[in-house]
């Protein structure tokens, strides 16, 4: 339907053009309360400049999805999100026909006594097409010349191999064929961010097509910065102690190691309880904010939490 525009493939669309260095990515993210280390900023910068998808892997709750949201904000563009699940197919990822509307249209045409020949063509026209995220992303630049959306393909590890194979194809040429309408091609490819929790191994072919970055749990200092950025009202002492506590807690053998998301939940919970520093009773009472398995809670509360609190508050008296 549409053909490639005049913009070049990499780096010249409006958003990306404003980003000229790794430092700028890092600072802009920080300005939007996202603390990224230099390696993540490098990966993002290259994703923008080389026009390649970036695969972000990491444990749950380390801020993978948040990167995409922040990037969209930073580039002043739209975020198009596709949540993956097993059995995700073309109907839910790319496009679907609006069957109810088509049926109604047929009834109307019948009532008008119109010719059937033309009817078939009409009910498979663009106005009956429901556009799903991938088609939206491909079409985006044709609708907003010069702009690149951020396409977030979230939790790809939940999708199955069939979808991975389809995605591989899409990522190579950013074009989608709707048999009844024709081929739609992105004038400028979207900024693609793919996240995975590693609940299964991804196919090597897909990985090779992407830039790769592993987001690790933050260091104590970085986590403290994150709390400061996300919860500006948090007392400094509390933020520091919470970061230290979380750091120590992650060294314990747990079924589910808490991520940054849990840290922020917990810090908010402690603030709601008007705590200005960690106390064992309060910690035990609020463990549910960071530990989500009964076995983990039992393991930590009592003796171990007292120890962790002592480590976290050492030197803060």
């Amino acid at each position, binding site marked *: 339907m549409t053909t490639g525009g005049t913009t070049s493939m990499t780096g010249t669309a409006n958003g990306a053009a404003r980003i000229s260095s790794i430092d700028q990515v890092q600072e802009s993210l920080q300005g939007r309360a996202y603390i990224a280390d230099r390696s993540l900023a*490098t990966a993002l*910068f290259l994703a923008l400049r080389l026009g390649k998808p*970036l695969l972000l892997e990491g444990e749950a709750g380390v801020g993978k999805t948040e990167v995409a949201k922040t990037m969209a904000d930073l580039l002043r563009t739209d975020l198009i999100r596709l949540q993956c699940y097993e059995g995700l197919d073309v109907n839910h990822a790319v496009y679907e*026909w609006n*069957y109810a509307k088509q049926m109604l249209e047929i009834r109307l045409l019948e009532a008008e006594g119109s010719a059937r020949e033309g009817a078939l063509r009409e009910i498979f026209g663009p106005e009956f097409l429901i556009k799903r995220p991938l088609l939206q992303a491909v079409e985006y630049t044709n609708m907003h010349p010069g702009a690149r959306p951020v396409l977030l393909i979230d939790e790809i590890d939940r999708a*199955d191999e*069939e979808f991975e194979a389809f995605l591989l194809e899409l990522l190579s040429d950013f074009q989608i064929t709707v048999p009844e309408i024709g081929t739609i091609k992105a004038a400028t490819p979207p900024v693609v961010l793919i996240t995975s929790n590693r609940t299964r191994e991804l196919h*090597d072919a897909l990985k090779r097509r992407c830039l790769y970055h592993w987001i690790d749990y933050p260091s104590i200092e970085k986590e403290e910065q994150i709390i400061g950025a996300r919860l500006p009202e948090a007392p400094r002492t509390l933020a520091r102690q919470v970061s230290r506590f979380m750091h120590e807690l992650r060294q314990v053998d747990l079924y589910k190691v808490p991520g940054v998301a849990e840290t922020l939940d917990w810090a908010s919970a402690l603030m709601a309880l008007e705590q200005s520093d960690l106390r064992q009773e309060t910690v035990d009472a609020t463990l549910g904010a960071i530990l989500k398995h009964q076995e983990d809670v039992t393991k930590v509360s009592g003796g171990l939490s007292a120890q962790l609190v002592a480590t976290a508050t050492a030197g803060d008296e």
Partner: protein
Amino acid sequence: MTADGTAGVLTGREIAAGEELLDRVVRFGRYLRQLGLPVTLGQIMDFVQSVDQVGFAREDFKLAGRATLVTRREDGPLYDEAFDLYWRRSTFAEDAADDDLSNLVPPDQALDKSESQLPPPPNKNREGREGEPERRMGQSEVEEREQDPDAEPDTQLTYSASEALKGKDFAQFTPAEMEQARRIMEEMTWKISQRRSRRTVRARKGAYLDLRRSLRTNMKYGGEPFELARRRQKLKPRQVVLICDISGSMDRYSRLLLQFMHTVEHGLSRVEVFVFGTRLTRITRQLRARNIDGALERVSQEVQDWAGGTRIGESLLTFNTRWSRRVLGRGAIVLIISDGWDRGDVNVLRREMARLQRGAYRLIWLNPLLGSPTYQPLTRGIQAALPYVDDFLPVHNLNSLESLALSLAEVTDRRPVRRQTLHLPDVLNAER
């Protein structure tokens, strides 16, 4: 990939220096491949292209390489080490903003470009992952079309061997008989039971309406829905997870079981393999790259505590905390092969078995000692584990492997009734 990768990379740059860089980068890629990182030419071209974007400040150059060349978390540290060995500090300008290519070529490498100039691998254990066969994509799709949608899985075992050999305990096998058993196993074909996935495929009968196809077909009736097209859930083989005891006498049985798992349709592509003595090690990737003996040989080099006794509970704890989330998705069948001689903490074993059973679709314990008619599961380890086992089966001879194949093929959509007693650590502590 190369088409968009090479174009314009070196424009406006000093050509000779550019070629030198390209050469160096390509050889760096080859070096990484030697170390076992699956680096492709396309990735190398991406790296070259990214240099144009980030410049030659050492740290940025290194990070750009990591973003483009590394595809697995576990390769990160190896890359860092390899980078530091390969790109000497003298290669880089001190000034981060300076991206002049002329000082890229290190003096000691500028003249001789022979292979021997490559620095030695930082960690020899990591080499040899190249040549790892790729999983084929969409394979099950093709197969789906070929087979009759409603056909039962073929559970027939197609081999014949002397009955005497089939009934003989592996422990009494001579090396010649071992070889014979392997050949027999190679001729076996069998399938793992399938699960219904959430993906749907076209079908004559099925629980789901195919609205798109229905509407198309019924256009000829003026849109009146006379014929309804249907879809049904696609069947996929279940994930199998093997957790093998390789301490002492169990080594032989574990090897044969692995050999046997190789004979399943698609080989080991849907099988995750872990081995343990006192510690748990994942060998899935090693097994895909080489044969069983080679892989186990390698593991035995890496695992120092080979004959140091068995800690099943601790090994399962490692599995439950580190691996279960990654390998137990979507109705996995878990096979533990061990004689249950456990030197670890029984309470840990009990707790971890309970947890493992909750995460597994089916938990099968294989015990070669079950082959003996006088065997009674009385050891502390087995006593603790048995309440959480769905099936307790022997694996001491070829006959028992044959019946294992049958039971794996017949794992149904209905899970066996489990009566797991609620595990409360406090209660247990009181018992002690």
